[in-house]
């Protein structure tokens, strides 16, 4: 059961992040002051991609809640970072971000670290 839950967390998180990044880049710079938070909440309510991203996030969240109850937090959190490599690849291919040597190497180091943390 833990691997099924983990797969749901990883896939739903990756989808959610790609949608969020795409939509927020289109929206332009946002802040988290009182007005900024209200504006962000309003954006979530009206932008289709953000609504879809929240649905994916909710799915990931409930699967994570069940995972974190059954498994140690020090497994659940790092293991769910498997979405990391999938998301970096999608960021390059779908979002057309420039993932150069330094950023790519850093991302791989972080992934290695997360894998070591995950046991």
């Amino acid at each position: 059961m833990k691997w099924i839950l983990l797969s749901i967390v990883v896939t739903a998180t990756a989808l959610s992040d790609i949608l969020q990044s795409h939509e927020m880049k289109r929206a332009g710079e946002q802040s988290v002051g009182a007005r900024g938070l209200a504006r962000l909440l309003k954006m979530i309510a009206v932008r289709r991609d953000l609504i879809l991203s929240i649905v994916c996030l909710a799915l990931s969240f409930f699967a994570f809640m069940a995972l974190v109850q059954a498994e140690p937090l020090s497994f659940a959190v790092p293991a769910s970072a498997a979405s990391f490599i999938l998301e970096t690849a999608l960021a390059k291919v779908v979002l057309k971000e420039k993932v150069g040597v330094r950023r790519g190497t850093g991302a791989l180091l972080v992934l290695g670290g997360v894998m070591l943390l995950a046991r």
Partner: protein
Amino acid sequence: MTAARGTRFRTYSLLGLFVFLRPVGNLSLAWGTKHFPQELSLNPVVYLRAMVDPFVALGIAMLILSLLTRLALLSLADLSFVLPVTAIGYVLAALFGQMFLHEAVNAQQWMGTALIFMGTGLVGSTKQNTTPTGKGSA
């Protein structure tokens, strides 16, 4: 302060806020669910009951705030920049697991922590945004 430096400052302020909110929210959620008497299954009623537990509710509130902070962050920086840099939260999660939930953290995990720090530093030194951003308003 130049526009670029101002944007960099706002980006790192949001990163700091997110890196604090996410692991603390996760810790509160883990604490609440681990002390919740029923097993979380596919039954939504059990989830709703768990969500009124104070620690679970606090965890959820902090995670919602962290989500909004991350949205603002993604309006300023690439996803491939935000992902590794915010991975420092995994280190905090392991530390909190050890400190508050008495989960063991071994030498291998400390090595993982060191790698995350190095990777985060490396990604943090790259340009935060490499794609066009909409006009919007701050």
